């Protein structure tokens, strides 16, 4: 690995420290070679990432153009900046109310999804008991059921519970429909954790709860984070279930605002408005995503490494 700089004592046979200079130089060359070795990797992921940046940049820049320029000069930089697109989109997407609704519903949903799925996944993946396979299979089978089939029966159930036009109802639906997929991911992460830790913890006098909460859960945290992120992203952009279950304006989520913008296309042709709405929605999403993924991963894996 690095150069071991020995103590600074002078060596009689090498008064100018040439030996060390040579070592340092070869180390520098070694580093350069290593860097060169990485070039293919950099190129590969670099180009791919660059394309993604380009994509987002194109959407963002297009949102600042006028509609004509989006089509006539699709790939050029905007010559004038039309910030009013954002004002217009804001009023349709109703960032204030819709955003709060989305935050509430999605955060609560992700929280409850993990809350109910993590224990279940832990048991199903590590505890042998009669019926484990059956229950696992029943949960997994849910992943194969297409959601559109559930629209009408689920709506009837929700209507009977008087939860049909409410954020609570939508949250319950989101949580329940995400359980199979989340349990499936989490069983993968729980499955490979070392059982010696469990056993030694029990020997040390931990209760089963403590084993789960203090040892297993933190170790599986990359899986929890991943499941949280996937659920978050999926639910944030979800609009079909929201469309079925939400009617009144004050209960709308931000994805429904985007849906409204899309609908209006045929009579307004306001593509830049649509892009502006998308940018408005993406920005908090990205901020939340960065917060969730990087900060939390750093914090939690540090804790877990104890």
């Amino acid at each position, binding site marked *: 690995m690095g150069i071991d700089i020995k103590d600074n004592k002078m060596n009689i046979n090498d008064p100018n420290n040439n030996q060390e200079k040579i070592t340092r130089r070869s180390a520098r060359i070694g580093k350069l070679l290593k860097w060169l070795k990485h070039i293919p990797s950099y190129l590969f992921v670099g180009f791919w990432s660059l394309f993604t940046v380009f994509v987002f940049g194109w959407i963002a820049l297009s949102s600042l153009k006028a509609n*004509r320029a989006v*089509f006539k000069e699709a790939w050029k930089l905007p010559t004038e900046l039309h910030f009013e697109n954002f004002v217009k989109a804001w009023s349709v997407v109703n960032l204030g109310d819709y955003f709060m609704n989305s935050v509430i519903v999605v955060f609560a949903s992700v929280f409850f999804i993990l809350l109910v799925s993590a224990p279940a996944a832990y048991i199903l993946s590590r505890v042998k008991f009669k019926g484990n396979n059956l229950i696992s299979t029943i949960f997994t089978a849910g992943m194969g059921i297409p959601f559109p089939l559930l629209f009408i029966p689920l709506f009837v159930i929700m209507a*009977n519970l008087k939860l049909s036009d409410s954020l609570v109802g939508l949250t319950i639906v989101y949580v329940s429909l995400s359980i199979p997929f989340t349990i499936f991911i989490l069983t993968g992460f729980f499955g490979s954790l070392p059982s010696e830790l469990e056993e030694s913890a029990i020997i040390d006098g931990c209760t089963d709860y403590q084993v789960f909460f203090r040892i297993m859960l933190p170790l599986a945290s990359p899986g929890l984070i991943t499941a949280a992120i996937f659920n978050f992203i999926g639910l944030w952009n979800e609009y079909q279930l929201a469309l079925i279950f939400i*009617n009144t304006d004050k209960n709308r989520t931000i994805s429904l605002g985007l849906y409204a913008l899309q609908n209006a296309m045929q*009579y307004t042709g*306001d*593509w830049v408005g649509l892009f502006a709405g998308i940018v408005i929605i993406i920005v908090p999403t990205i901020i939340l995503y960065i917060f969730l993924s990087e900060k939390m991963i750093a914090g939690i894996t540090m804790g877990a490494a104890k």
Partner: protein
Amino acid sequence: MKRMRFLVVLLVAFSLIFTACQAEVEEPGETDSEDEQVVLEYWSMWNVSEPQALAIQAWIEAFEAENPNIKINATWNGRENQTKLRSALAGGTKVDFMDQDADQVAGGLMAEGLGYPLNDFLQQDALDYDGTVADTFVPGVIDLHKMGDDYYLFPYVYNTWQFWTNMDVLADVGITEDPQTWEEFLGMAQQIQDAGYSVLAAEGSEFSYNFPYFAYIVERLKGPGFLLAAVEDETGEAWNDPAFLQAAEMTRELWDRGFIPADTVGYVWPAGQMTLATGDSTMEMCGSWLPTELRDTAGEDFNWGGLRFPAVEGGEGDINDLTAWLLSFMIMEDSEHPKEVFEFLKFTQTQANAQLMADEALVGVTRKDISWAEAIKDGEEAAANANVALLPNDGIQAFYPEYQETVLTPAYNAFFTLEISPEEFIQTMVEDTADYWASK
């Protein structure tokens, strides 16, 4: 670990706040039965901030001011209104009236018998017109979606299907007269092309935008209902009528002569219509929403005109026969206040109110004597002169949506985008129609 706990606390707090917020929310829409107050539930295809929605909201406010005992609760659902309504009805939601594209309602709620008949209501005196309510509509419109002898739909927006044209190009080429026949139309197109312009804009595989070429030609040749009858023929043999092959060949000619540019096969909506807006092509056959939709891209100075689909010499259809894409209200069959709903519908058909919609949304309306927006003035004229209004796709869309989607669309898309020849298209229709009916 500490951060994990902190996070859990944070999320629990969130959920508690959220639940608390929910506790304050009341259930909306409780009808107060102590007063004489009537509450009408209206489910709308518009989103709350669209111009059409704003116009309707103005209508509602004015109506409620004049009728203090009636309140209208509008739910702005967006385009999948009827589909949403289906779930809601299954869940027992009460809705008094709704709106949607007329042919969708015709094929959906109306066909299911869930509409309230308007026969008697339409005979009431109009509010500001010397005649019945039915008389306030431009010709052909009220009868268009009749079911047997009964009327269920109350259309309020009229989208005409014409060639929306950059009139500056026509002026530049020296064309001053609307082409009356197909031959004249081809001649005009040739002139435009010779002057160096691209003629027709179209989208690649957008069936609903491209099929009207074929449908119009068949109607011009054989009159309305001929195409529908072919669809209904369970042997498929009706498609062998030479009129269909002729219509296919005439459509193909537009490609062969380059009036529809070859690149069009790859155009994904809205690429085609954008070429019209940016001045790169001359005309597109589309609904009269097109000038409004392209307004922002085309600019305020764009000189719009609307050409009617030409007649075919020797054919039965007239140049004034006009395909009408209507948006329509419908009263639900189990509404408890159909009379009150119709008071509102009647109200929307006054001169002032219809004009409001035409001005706000820049669309065509179904009321007589209304001044449509400048860009679609030709639509206004066409609608007023159309003694025969035509169903979209001759009614296939309303009555046989599955056939349209699964049989007609793949075959026609393949034909229109040059994958199969006119003969092959007809052959496919003969076979597939028979197969379709056999599988029922």
